[in-house]
């Protein structure tokens, strides 16, 4: 009803006041239905977001409960000090060090490859390569990150190891060197793309300032861009280490299943992840000590990687705060 309504119209229609009221209550009812429906949807959205928290709680609970059972039967001092890991033999030892050493050794080899190549690639893509080259090269590099790890395992065992054996005759069929090298290549795209993002976020004005002072491109890169994006690069490195520590199929295939305490990269060893695979492939009944060992090892793995991830997150956060 508008003010232009003629008196006749008003007379034939219901009382204006009543009409307005009806419209209002009607809308209110629709409004109420709509609000209830939207609150239901919002609750669903919220619950979906909570699944991530539930997942973490689930991981901690599952790992925790079996680990507690494990330590009821095996002393935690033995776990941390014994130098032998032989839970599958008759004479059982439960020292995590052989598995941990193997994990660290292969991660170090992988990092020696992934960090320099990844960082150099990032600098090349962000600072040197023309845009159209970078646009083609980047997705191809990303394919490296998308190749399933079982394929890398195949490559390490059946291509890299035989190749290396030509130069290093004493190299065993299963060894940390090939696994580490291939794992390093696998991690290159991770380091490269995160570092490149960090470098691209450095404001152009900083580069121009340095150029204006007479710096060459190399000096701009090393004295301005890299230091300015350092926390982002460090975050990428830490995340890469976490990735190497948790990597499973390459080491399960190419590094062997011999838990021994050594730093020789030419012989077979067993990482934490490879041990979990080894036990999982057998038919280990629930409740046995062997079953519990994989959760104890899993807990160790989870604690290490989570510490690295959170550290990386803090570096990244600090870096983002500077330029946003």
């Amino acid at each position, binding site marked *: 009803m508008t003010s232009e309504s003629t008196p006749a119209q008003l007379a034939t229609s219901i009382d204006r006041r009543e009409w307005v009221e009806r419209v209002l209550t009607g809308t209110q009812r629709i409004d109420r239905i*709509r609000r209830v429906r939207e609150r239901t949807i919002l609750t669903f959205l919220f619950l979906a977001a909570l699944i991530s928290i539930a997942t973490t709680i689930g991981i901690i609970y599952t790992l925790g409960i079996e680990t507690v059972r494990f330590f009821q039967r095996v002393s935690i001092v033995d776990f941390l000090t014994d130098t032998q890991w032989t839970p599958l033999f008759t004479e059982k030892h439960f020292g995590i060090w052989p598995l941990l050493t193997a994990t660290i050794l292969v991660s170090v080899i992988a990092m020696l490859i992934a960090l320099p190549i990844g960082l150099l690639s990032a*600098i090349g893509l962000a600072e040197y390569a023309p845009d159209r080259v970078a646009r083609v090269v980047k997705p191809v590099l990303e394919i490296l990150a998308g190749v*399933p790890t079982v394929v890398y395992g195949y490559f390490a065992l059946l291509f890299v190891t035989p190749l290396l054996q030509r130069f290093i005759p004493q190299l065993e069929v299963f060894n940390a060197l090939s696994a580490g090298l291939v794992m390093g290549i696998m991690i290159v795209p991770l380091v490269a793309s995160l570092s490149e993002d960090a470098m691209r976020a450095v404001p152009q004005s900083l580069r121009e300032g340095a150029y204006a002072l*007479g710096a060459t491109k190399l000096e701009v890169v090393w004295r301005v861009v890299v230091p300015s994006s350092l926390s982002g690069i460090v975050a990428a490195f830490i995340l890469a280490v976490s990735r190497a520590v*948790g990597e499973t199929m390459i080491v399960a295939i190419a590094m062997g299943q011999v838990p021994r305490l050594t730093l020789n990269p030419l012989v077979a060893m067993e990482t934490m992840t490879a041990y979990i*695979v080894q036990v999982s492939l057998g038919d280990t009944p629930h409740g046995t000590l062997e079953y519990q060992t994989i959760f104890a090892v899993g807990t160790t793995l989870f604690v290490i990687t989570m510490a690295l991830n959170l550290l990386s997150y803090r570096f990244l956060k600090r870096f983002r705060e500077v330029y946003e």
Partner: protein
Amino acid sequence: MSAERIATTDREFEPRLSLRKRLGMLFGLLSAVAIAIGLVTLEVLIADVIHDGWRALSWDFLTSYPSRRPEQAGIRSALVGTFYILILVGLIAFPLGVAAAIYLEEFAPKNRLTATIEINLSNLAAVPSIVYGLLGLGVFVRTFMLGRSLLAGALTLSLLVLPIIIIASREALRAVPPSIREAGLALGASHWQTVRLFVLPAALPGILTGTILALARAIGETAPLITIGALTYVAFTPKSLFDPFTVLPIQIFNWISRPQPAFHERAAAGIIVLLAVLLLFNGLAIFLRARLQRRIRF
């Protein structure tokens, strides 16, 4: 400031510009070499696999069940298993992931809980996949008593890819300009209507691309499925959600770990099929992004 002093600084100032420029060129070359190492490795890897496996590729290879005799062994059960896993993970993880992303990006208040969810997500995205396997073993296989079934595997992988889908979807939502939301609200739409009718369609290409890449990750995963106890030798196709299953990467792993070279050839052939499937997915993602992006312009 004496004239002598100025003369000294003048003598000390050596730009050595040509040397510095040459060093820079050398460094640029070095970075090109670094990029080339990655690309060449990828090429060698693909060439090696094709060289090893192309002879074993045939229609029979795709349609036969695995066998003790390498010349008869095929990937039928693995292909079917991978297909089912793909469908299930898509059905479970896509709606949940997008819902969580919408909540976090559009509705979440800035409080402690939201901050916790954020940190938690970034951690979960980097938790080793084998830990998800242990989670699936403890929760889905034992507690929910799903056994080593297709459903247990799909649920485990869904949890694994959920953070990836959430992060990709959030990025897509963030890329929608705020003016779109303001326009929707100004027209009298409610917050949810604005998101559903204006923001979500605009973000859809990014969300779909992220989901497809996450699914590609899911079909390449081996470790978590081995941990929950997926069988490595399956000579049948699953008939229900509660049947045992195998997938392509597990079948490949099984063949690699045998000593006979004839099985390694089968493994290489399996890898060719797996890489072809993944390539298809990546292609689809790129195509979708290009196709859908063209329709929506701001």
